[in-house]
């Protein structure tokens, strides 16, 4: 019984998915299906909150671990899922016959992502990775514009399959060198493994699949294309929910690889990560300067943010991990806000060019204010979480003496001001185009979600203590595993 309670969040989401599938078979209308899914996701969030304090291993020891870290990440995932579902009741940008299936696939993918945060065994991790990816591949291709949707889906899936094959190949070497697939046993064997170069190469290959989900250079190419060509709610899902899980796994893997005192030279892997982070930040920010599409711009900004996160990740320290968990929560809220605006503005558009935001200030002051808060957050301006979160990320790297890296990161975030401000300029200062002067009226649910997200962004920026402590505790729980 206790075991069932431990996997309550995943179970709830799975059951909700099955229920939704039942509704699909019964031929219920879009609205009903969506309601069931929404209720299910709320229940899932509740389940996450219930299990927040629990620790244990519901299956054979070593395969699947429930602790504060995993449950915190699951809570974040569930909350993000609720927020994404808020935006996906009947998105006109998708093929009409796929509206009903959208919540079903989102639920399934979230369940996979939740598994990823808890999995402590390589193959379970791989399985969860695939499980979370398959429904998303299918959703992208269900874009109303089939030409665009199929191109985006094909390319995304192709890159995703290659990345996961590389991950699997890397896993095989780790398995071979350590004789096991359990992270805890690998961590225990680390002092011997660490002296083998092949182990570090294998780890790099293994990380490839998760760095791909995070959109770090050189696995970043999909991000702008996929954000651009996906139906808006699906893009929101990819940009928020799946990022969280990828970050969670990266934290876990890196905690295994080099976090405990007894370890070995992870130095070479760190240098590789540093180079990748620098490349990602620079590429992302530079390419974003010339973007004309809002979602593409957010895609490049996501690449840059992947770089910022790896800046802290490579520190291999608990401060760095805490900073990452903290920033992830804030990043999720900021990104969701931006995508929410994209969804609302692009309700009847296949794509959301930046120019479509023109006159947002007049069309919907509420959306404009939300966009302001979200963009400020992404830019890293106080009093949003973007500022304080970046501060923590950079100080983690500095604590480690990575002076030059932080300098590059800080310069990068200075360059980024330019394109973020351009978005705000269009939204606040230009007159709306002739064809879309109408008032935008987001549904009450969207407004509620937006208020919550804005509140989180500001709250974490002004009084970070509460969230910081939770993140720190979660990282302590993560460290206790090994």
């Amino acid at each position, binding site marked *: 019984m206790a075991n069932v309670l431990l996997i309550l969040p995943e179970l709830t989401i*799975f059951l909700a998915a099955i229920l939704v*599938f039942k509704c699909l078979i019964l031929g219920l209308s879009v609205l009903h299906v969506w309601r069931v899914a929404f209720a299910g996701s709320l229940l899932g969030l509740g389940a996450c909150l219930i299990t927040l304090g629990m620790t244990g291993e519901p*299956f*054979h020891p070593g*395969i*699947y671990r429930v602790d504060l870290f995993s449950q915190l990440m699951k809570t974040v995932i569930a909350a993000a899922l609720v927020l994404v579902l808020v935006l996906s009741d009947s998105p006109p940008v998708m*093929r*009409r*016959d*796929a509206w009903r*299936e959208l919540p079903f*696939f989102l639920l*399934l993918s979230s*369940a996979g992502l939740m*598994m990823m945060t808890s*999995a402590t065994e390589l*193959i*379970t991790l791989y*399985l*969860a990775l*695939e*499980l979370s990816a*398959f*429904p998303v*591949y*299918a959703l992208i*291709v*269900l874009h109303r514009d089939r030409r665009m949707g199929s191109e985006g889906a094909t390319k995304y899936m192709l890159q995703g399959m290659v990345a996961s094959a590389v991950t699997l190949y890397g896993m095989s070497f780790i398995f*071979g*060198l350590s*004789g096991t697939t359990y992270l805890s046993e690998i961590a225990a064997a680390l002092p011997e493994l660490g002296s*083998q*170069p*092949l182990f570090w*190469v294998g780890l790099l290959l293994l990380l490839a699949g998760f760095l791909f989900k995070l959109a770090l250079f050189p696995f970043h190419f999909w991000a702008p294309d996929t954000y651009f060509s996906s139906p808006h709610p699906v893009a929101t899902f990819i940009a928020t929910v799946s990022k969280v899980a990828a970050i969670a796994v990266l934290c876990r893997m890196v905690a295994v690889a080099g976090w405990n005192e007894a370890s070995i030279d992870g130095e070479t892997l760190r240098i590789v990560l540093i180079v990748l982070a620098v490349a990602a930040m620079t590429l992302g920010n530079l390419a974003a300067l010339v973007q004309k599409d809002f979602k593409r711009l957010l895609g490049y900004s996501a690449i840059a943010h992947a770089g910022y996160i790896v800046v802290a990740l490579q520190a291999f320290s608990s401060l760095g991990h805490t900073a990452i968990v903290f920033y992830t929560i804030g990043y999720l809220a900021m990104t969701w806000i931006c995508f929410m605006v994209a969804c609302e503005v692009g309700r009847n558009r296949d794509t959301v060019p930046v120019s479509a935001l023109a006159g947002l200030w007049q069309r919907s002051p509420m959306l404009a204010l939300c966009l302001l808060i979200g963009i400020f957050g992404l830019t890293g301006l106080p009093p949003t979480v973007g500022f304080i979160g970046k501060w923590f990320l950079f100080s983690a790297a500095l604590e480690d003496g990575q002076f030059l890296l932080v300098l590059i990161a800080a310069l990068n975030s200075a360059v980024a001001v330019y394109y973020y401000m351009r978005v705000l300029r269009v939204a606040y200062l230009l007159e709306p185009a002739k064809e879309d002067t109408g008032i935008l009226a987001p549904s009450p649910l969207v407004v509620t979600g937006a208020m919550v997200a804005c509140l989180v962004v500001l709250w974490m920026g002004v009084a970070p203590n509460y969230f910081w402590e939770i993140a720190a505790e979660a990282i302590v729980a993560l460290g206790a595993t090994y």
Partner: protein
Amino acid sequence: MIATLVIAAFMILAMAGAIYAALVPHTLHCIIGLGLTLFGVAGIYLYLGSPFVAAMQILIYIGGISVAMVFALMLSVSLAKKMKHSEIKVILSSIAAILFLAVMARLIMTTEFPLREEPAGAAAWGVEQIGHGFLTTYSPLFIGLAICLSVAIIAAVLVARREADKS
């Protein structure tokens, strides 16, 4: 001795099939190359002591996946069409792949793997152990795999169906 010769033959079959599949221009030939490789790999599994996995390889891979590909080819004529083969692309990508191969090969050759005292015999691990493992220790894998497959089927059906709406 004979076992060594046989396994060497399987290995060569696998590698030759793979290289053939990677380089041959015609799509159908490519799938045939894949089939050869899969067959070789099944042989390797057999040598490595797992007839069950080898059987699965032949059943699912050769019987399922390759056939699905051929079907896909047949459903749409142009899927099968012979595409222009750009020499320069092949050369460049071969260079990239050989770079990777060289790096990994050097690592593999220089690494000392923690070999077991003596390789276990085939009899020690049969179907029962696999089934037992799937249902006890690795039950999340089993559940997850089942979900994955059903998701894939639902998704594939949904995606590939012709659109009902004319709007």
